[in-house]
């Protein structure tokens, strides 16, 4: 099962289980349409109707505000952006409203809101390419999930729907496994069987995707697969990368990372966001401040260079980390080049 289908399965199961769950977004619930920009909600209107699969105008601020208001009445909306880049049109609702309403009420009001947003460079140019997780990670009041496998996509989205707080679920365009007209060039195929029964993936529990004794790598989404690719390449030369998928950025599972650092003593963050002020910087700073004794060498970040993403595929490939850049950084960290 692909990630797109796993997300659709999660939404379907939650909407069947709980009549207060609704979807709200652009280009959803259009018979003959796409099911959102990346097919995740495709066909759901046939089972759930247009009141619950609610298409909106191109009004990002309006639709997130409406989802917040709906959440305040007891509905559990899943709002989606076609591209995460569009979320900045809704910045007031995402920064000033959703994550502060519970707090401003003194904890008396809950906002059970899920926002889904596709991230990642995919040869569309600077305004359909960003990985804006850090903007939300920075803002108190949000939980942030970053599923990279179909199993996690289903389990994290279901956990997000059941959470009484605003939860951002960032999904990667090249990992959806969308097919047909919505197929992505350079996509990574991450199909895996996903259990049909009810399960959630709890927030704040990282998984080690590949064990290794030399460097602790933390990576999400596309960078997770590129890190695994680099680990494979380096494995042939006897270098072992331990690759950790945090699965959620807020809350973040520092325990798993620290346990790993106890074995490796070396930390490297791989992120597709631009480097300056990214979530990786936060992880590095937190580990350095509180667990610096675990580090044998200074930590490192491999990230997209600090520039908007160019449309040219060649320039995009240069800007975004790939396996060889990750492998080179790892060798440097080990003093091998």
């Amino acid at each position, binding site marked *: 099962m692909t990630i797109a289908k796993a997300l659709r399965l999660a939404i379907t199961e939650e909407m069947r289980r709980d009549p207060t769950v609704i979807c709200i977004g652009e280009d959803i619930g259009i018979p003959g349409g796409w099911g959102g920009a990346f097919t995740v909600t495709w066909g759901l209107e046939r089972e759930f109707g247009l009141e619950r699969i609610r298409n909106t105008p191109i009004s990002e601020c309006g639709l997130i505000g409406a989802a917040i*208001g709906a959440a305040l009445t007891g509905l559990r909306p899943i709002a989606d952006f076609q591209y995460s880049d569009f979320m900045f049109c809704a910045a007031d609702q995402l920064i000033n409203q959703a994550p502060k309403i519970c707090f401003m009420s003194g904890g*008396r009001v809950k906002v059970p809101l899920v926002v889904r947003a596709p991230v990642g460079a995919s040869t569309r140019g600077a305004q359909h390419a960003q990985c804006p997780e850090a903007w939300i990670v920075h803002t108190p009041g949000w939980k942030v999930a970053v599923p990279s496998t179909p199993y996690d996509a289903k389990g994290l989205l279901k956990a997000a729907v059941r959470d009484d707080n605003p939860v951002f679920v960032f999904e990667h365009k090249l990992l959806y496994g969308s097919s047909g007209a919505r197929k992505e060039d350079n996509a990574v195929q991450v199909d895996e069987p996903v259990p049909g029964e009810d399960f959630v993936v709890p927030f704040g529990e990282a998984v080690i995707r590949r064990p290794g004794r030399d460097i602790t790598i933390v990576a999400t989404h596309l960078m997770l697969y590129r890190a695994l690719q680099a680990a494979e390449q380096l494995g042939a030369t006897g270098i072992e990368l331990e690759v950790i998928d945090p699965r959620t950025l807020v809350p973040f599972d520092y325990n798993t990372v620290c346990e790993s650092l106890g074995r490796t003593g070396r930390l490297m963050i791989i992120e597709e966001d631009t480097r300056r002020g990214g979530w990786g910087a936060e992880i590095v700073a937190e580990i350095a401040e509180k667990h610096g004794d675990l580090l044998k060498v200074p930590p490192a970040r491999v990230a997209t260079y600090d520039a908007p993403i160019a449309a040219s595929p060649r320039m995009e490939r240069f800007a975004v980390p790939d396996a060889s850049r990750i492998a080179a950084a790892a060798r440097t960290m080990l003093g091998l080049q």
Partner: protein
Amino acid sequence: MTAAHLPQSGRPPPLPERAQALDLYRTMRRIREFEDRVFAYFRAGRIPGTVHQYQGQEAVAAGICGHLLRTDYVTSTHRPHGHAIAKGIPLQEMAAELFGSTLGCCRGYSGSMHMGSPEYGMPPASAIVAGGVPIAAGLGLGCRMLRPGAMVACFFGDGAFNNGAFHEGANLCAIWDLPVILVCENNFYAASTHVTLANKNPRLAERARSYGMPTETVDGNDVFAVYEATGRAAARARGGDGPTFLECLTYRRCGHSRRDQNKYRDKQEEQFWLARDPLDLARTRLLDAGVAAPSDFQAIDEATAAEVQAALDHGEQAPQPAGEDALLHVFYEESR
């Protein structure tokens, strides 16, 4: 913008029955009394922060909320005290909130500008201009899906009309036929900017009509005019006939915020509106119609003054939170 802009209907709005009419007056009096006394506390440095007050606009909150049930919703703004009082939040809780107390309606987390209470259908007010309009659309959607017959009154000022959030939210209300009254409190000034400086066409109801919803402009200083128009809008909302844009022309008797002295206002305009105090207009109307006697108003005024002072006394003495409570409620917890 003076008399020429007020709707010329040629007849005064009908009066509701006596008890309701006096209730509307009482709500206005409670707002005026609360705001005037709160202002004195601010001036004396006894209440922290800033405050955006509602003196002069009482007829809008009272007339609108006169048609709302406790289970209906309002969204409010940086100027929320009048809406909160009209929606029924107890004055003691409001006063305690202004003093930052744990007994406040938001336990000291909202202060003046984010006042609200879930028990009274008022989510924390949004102090970002127009921020509450899309939220009101969502509240309307929730009303329709979960509690048919319930409705939303969305308060905002003329300043919100030029913010994108208003237009996105208003359009959603229209295309989804949501049970919402969009209440534009046109007090002619977005902070210090006059409505004619910010709008080529300052007749906001005209512009709102283009969204495909009924609109009405009323004398927002005449509580009976607001109440009558709200009756029509509320019937549409509750009956499934969608939103209404209700422009209430009104005027601040106070500054925009705590220390503002309104030096930017036209004197003639000011004179015209300050002579039309909403409480005086209501009192005169009810006396002239023989519906109420001077003693009725005296009784309300005296009782209200005592009630408000008692609320402020309570608020000032109510317990303060611990500093470290600042870290609570970032996330919702069922037990709290």
